[in-house]
């Protein structure tokens, strides 16, 4: 058996050497996403978005055949680091694309950028990687984490809400969310309530909200927590009385479970499935046909990440060895983003528009978020000025 494999390998090597068109090795991309646990659906959207882009690009990026290696970080930073080392040392990937969660991004950042491999985030945008610890090998096709929350803070301020009730899970991202909201909101915060992570029953919070009568509530409740909160908020009769502002709570990963309870609720985002560009319409239709779900922003970011890599490799003629040339090509971001305007700031994070989006029921009965108004134009994140990369 061993002999056979060796012979085959030799034969393959000979064939390769005699076929110059095949001479270029396959490009290797490691997809690092959360694909198990309660938050797996976010990673699935990103994976499907990336794979859809690969299909649309004919299976090639910048003219090269591609090997996409998908790994599950299990939402555990230590597991993610082990798997990333496998991607870097065993598979020798040219790009790492991912992750969803910021704790994974922070833990895996150093091994990836130290090995001079480009790291393209499709969601996580922790403040330190946008600011002080920014790195020329790190790019995000998503946003800095605070920005979606800032959208709601700005909206609450502009609409003249006097008293706002804040609600978040008690962990780092929850606290960051509320401080993001407060960046533009200057009114009174009558309560800043933290519930344990993975709380599923919000009835006692709802009683407090009803008794305090705020002008609006702002919350960040990703995953199953958001499903429950929205359903219970609607059932308690609060949805028609106290506006429900949120981020990462009412989105396409949760809407299939929230159903009609979420209709009319407001979120902040850099994109929505109904955005009116030819590319986006094609993307949403193809995604729905292939995966039987309305894509969430995670899918869009991953799709854009594939387009970004494709555009950069086209500029370098498919070469990845000259890192500076490749970086300059990435920086130019010469692709048509599904969200419209897109360019990179010096810190590798996008400068883009942000919108207030509203959960809406489409005529075919499916739910999606739809753009309600533009809140920020060509918006740079608050940490970019702390980043020391200059070029």
């Amino acid at each position: 058996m061993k002999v056979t494999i060796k012979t085959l390998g030799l034969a393959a090597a000979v064939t390769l050497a005699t076929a110059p068109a095949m001479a270029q090795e396959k490009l290797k991309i490691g997809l690092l996403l959360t694909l198990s646990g309660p938050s797996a659906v976010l990673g699935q959207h990103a994976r499907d978005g990336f794979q859809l882009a690969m299909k649309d690009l004919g299976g090639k990026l910048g003219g090269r055949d591609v090997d996409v290696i998908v790994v599950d970080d299990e939402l555990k930073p230590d597991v993610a680091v082990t798997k990333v080392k496998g991607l870097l040392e065993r598979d020798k990937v040219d790009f790492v694309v991912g992750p969803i969660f910021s704790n994974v991004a922070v833990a895996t950042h150093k091994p990836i950028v130290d090995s001079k491999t480009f790291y393209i985030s499709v969601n996580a945008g922790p403040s330190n990687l946008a600011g002080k610890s920014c790195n020329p090998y790190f790019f995000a096709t998503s946003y800095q984490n605070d920005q979606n929350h800032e959208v709601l803070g700005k909206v609450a301020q502009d609409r003249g809400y006097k008293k706002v009730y804040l609600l978040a899970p008690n962990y780092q991202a929850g606290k960051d969310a509320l401080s993001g909201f407060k960046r533009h909101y200057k009114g009174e915060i009558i309560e800043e309530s933290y519930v344990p992570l993975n709380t599923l029953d919000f009835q006692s919070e709802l009683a407090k909200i009803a008794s305090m009568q705020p002008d609006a509530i702002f919350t960040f409740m990703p995953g199953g927590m958001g499903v429950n909160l929205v359903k219970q908020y609607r059932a308690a009769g609060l949805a028609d009385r106290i506006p429900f502002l949120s981020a990462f709570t009412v989105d396409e990963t949760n809407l299939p479970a929230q159903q009609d309870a979420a209709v009319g609720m407001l979120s902040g985002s850099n994109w929505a499935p109904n955005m009116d560009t030819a590319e986006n319409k094609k993307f949403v239709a193809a995604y729905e046909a292939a995966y039987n779900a309305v894509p969430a922003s995670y899918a869009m970011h991953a799709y854009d990440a594939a387009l970004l890599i494709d555009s950069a490799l086209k500029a370098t003629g498919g070469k990845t060895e000259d890192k500076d040339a490749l970086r300059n090509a990435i920086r130019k971001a010469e692709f048509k983003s599904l969200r419209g305007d897109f360019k990179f700031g010096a810190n590798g994070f996008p400068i883009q528009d942000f919108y207030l989006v509203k959960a809406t029921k489409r005529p075919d009965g499916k739910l999606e978020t739809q753009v309600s108004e533009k809140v920020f134009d060509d918006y740079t994140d608050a940490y970019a000025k702390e980043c020391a990369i200059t070029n």
Partner: protein
Amino acid sequence: MTATLFFIQALNGLQFGLILFLIAAGLTLVFGVMDFINLAHGVQYMVGAYLVAAFSAWTGSFGWGLLLALPTALAFGLLLEVLVFRHLYDRDHLEQVLATFGIILFLNQSVKFIWGAAPLSVPVPEVMSGSVEIMDGLLYPVYRMAIIAAGLVVAALLYLVVSHTRVGMLVRAGATNASMVSALGINIRRLFMIVFGFGAMLAGFAGAMVAPILSVQPGMGDNILILAFVVIVIGGIGSIRGAFLAALLIGLVDTLGRSFMPNLLRLVLDPSAASQTGRAIAPMLIYIFMAAVLFFRPSGLFPAKR
């Protein structure tokens, strides 16, 4: 206003406590009667929720879904008993913990494999979809009252069965001294199987009842399992009465603590410090309570008589 708020929060605490009781009842019997640590009890709660989600989607009605889910949960519990747990009774606790932990991982992945990772939603049954305005601006769903009622009915039934029937007598006897019961000619293995099956069904019932108000998702049983263990430790292992009272206490302490701790502390601290400290202490309250109970009554509030 504060009195109404207090009343509502007490109602919330009661409802939470009753759900905890449904889970803890099976757990305490299995632990008390069989001396068997079943970490997989939480996933049986999850399985109940998934079954009712699947069956009500299939039949189009929550009532039918519940009717079909209960026997299936029972059958599933019995199947697990026959396939896995039966072989663990004579092993030590560490091996039971490892094996049942394996079941958690296996079942969490299985439901994800079958139903996907995204949370499922179960519609509230039509007849109970209304709500009552019990406080200015706050509607209280009728369905939550139905949960309270169902919890109380099940508790009463359990009390009757355990205290006034022959099977209940055997269960109580088994909790006190299993080998003696066996020596008297009772098939203790079969008794174990029945207890186990019904424990699994009760957990499944709890999962089915909360499915319309919570989202059904993989891993939903993992957090509640810890609370169920707190309940049986406070209540006294093997005691249904203890589990009932401890579950209500935990439900009330947790819910009221979270809502009113900051207000209470405001009497002694300035408002911002009070709300900071209140937030920090509230989630710890039940564990502080458990530590206190263990300090004064190491075998719980109502231990099964030995």
